[in-house]
């Protein structure tokens, strides 16, 4: 059974075809990177998998269960976690509070009204453990809006990880980062447990080839090529469409 099975997913926005029938399949533990120029439909595909957008047609299955029309929170509870292209954190809460909310969500600890969150020692320990593991302990009490952009991207990834998701969707986690910060995020992803299935959008070819087991290239709402590094580098259509664009795009 595939971890993620997208079949013929399509999405129209009032006549604009953002997705024109995309199919892809990830085995459990597989790491796939989506490449493609801006407007290729990568983020739309992500949204249909995470539930922020419902596909116009086609189906999406998570470990065999049909999730095509589920709400984002229902998918999250089934083990889908994601980061956002534009940093989407709780800017006015501290780093620890951000992670705590993520752990609460993962533990379905939501409708508890009386005992303060500080009293849930297991949750607190897990959140602090995550900060330790990913080297963010020192920033625990800093408000997220006071962090550097690179640190915010890291918090974003750690939040997605805190539920130990079965499927992790990373939307350009290294966009806008310095080379050193990019390296740190790439290291984070490489250190993730091998059992976790990862689908990632990336603009940086080097980052993509470093992380991915398999690469899919999107163009104009379709997947035009799929395969390992050699196959993609050797693909004429890809180098015409994407690699050419990337030079001017970057």
């Amino acid at each position, binding site marked *: 059974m595939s971890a993620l099975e997208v079949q013929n997913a399509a999405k129209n926005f009032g006549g604009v075809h953002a997705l024109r029938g995309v199919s892809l399949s990830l085995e459990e533990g597989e790491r796939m990177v989506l490449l493609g120029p801006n407007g290729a439909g990568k983020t739309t595909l992500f949204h249909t998998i995470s539930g922020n957008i419902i596909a116009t047609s086609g189906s999406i299955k998570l470990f065999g269960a049909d999730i095509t029309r589920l709400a*984002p929170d229902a998918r999250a509870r089934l083990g889908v976690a994601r980061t956002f292209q534009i940093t989407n954190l709780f800017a006015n809460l501290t780093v620890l509070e951000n992670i705590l909310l993520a752990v609460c969500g993962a533990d379905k600890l939501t409708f*508890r009204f009386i005992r303060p969150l500080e009293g849930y020692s297991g949750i607190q320990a897990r959140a602090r453990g995550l900060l330790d593991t990913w080297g963010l302990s020192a920033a625990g009490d800093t408000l997220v809006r006071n962090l550097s952009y690179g640190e915010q991207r890291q918090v974003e990834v750690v939040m997605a990880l805190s539920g130990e998701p079965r499927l992790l969707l990373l939307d350009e986690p290294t966009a806008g980062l310095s080379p050193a910060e990019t390296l740190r995020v790439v290291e984070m992803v490489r250190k993730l447990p091998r059992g976790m299935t990862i689908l990632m959008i990336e603009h940086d070819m080097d980052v993509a080839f470093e992380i991915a087991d398999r690469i899919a290239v999107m163009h104009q709402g379709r997947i035009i090529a799929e395969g390992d590094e050699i196959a993609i580098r050797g693909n004429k259509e890809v180098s015409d469409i994407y690699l050419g664009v990337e030079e001017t795009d970057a």
Partner: protein
Amino acid sequence: MGRALLIALIGAAAFAVLPALLPSYYLGLVTKMMIFALFAMSLDLMVGYAGLASLGHAAFFGLGAYTVGLLIVRAHVSEWIAFPAGVLAATAGGALFAALALRARGSYLLMITLALAQVVWGIAFGWRTLTGGDDGLPGIPRPVYFISLAGETAFFYFVLLFTGISALLLAAIVRSPFGRALRGIRESETRMQALGFNVWRHQFTAFVIAAGFAGLAGCLYVYHNRFVSPDFLHVVVSAEALIMVILGGVGTLLGPAIGAALIIFLEDFISSQTQRWLLILGIIYVATTLYAPRGIIGLYKEYTARKKQR
């Protein structure tokens, strides 16, 4: 937590001795302050924590008040039933409003809550045979719960008990996992969804809880006044609750309680000095928005922060 408990105990003790110190008129005024403090705190749960702005909170205040009034004056029901029924009616009204209004956000939500509250006002104002219309329902006696609460002192303690317990409950709720989730939702709904939180269900619950506490305040106020009229439901009351919340400090619970006490005091004091209370109230709205958007608590925090820097 220990410090907060200590402050709460000292505060409770200070309130407990008030009846010995204040003349009956001012004791009644403090009772009114406590009722509106509860009302403002309930609104703060929505506005300050869940990020749901409302201009219709008076509807729940009035639903509680009218339920008690109608059950006692028209149906001659026991006050043991009427009082909880009032809170229940407000809570149910909150659920209905939330179901209708929660699809909207921001200023649209403000307008819809205002319009829905106006429906309740319309019933109270128009259905004269039941509600007495504009004249309201007079002659609602203060209840007897083991002892008579007719005197100002006994009634003061009665209100203190309910407001105190409610304040503790609300303070617990905002620190609980549920309350923290509300703050997260206020900051980013999409992120909370991605973390597996059902945003709608959280907002709905916050709305209903807030309506319940507002209804409790309304029930207390109808006993305080011995009277209920459509004025309880007026948009002015909703707006007054909103200015209490902002003037005190949105999202702090303590702030809205202070804001409520201040507005009630000013209303009493200025009305006794001049005819122009409405003008001054309007200026308070404008000045608060311009010069103290984080409220009294916000000003205090800025002050202590500046002192620390020096």
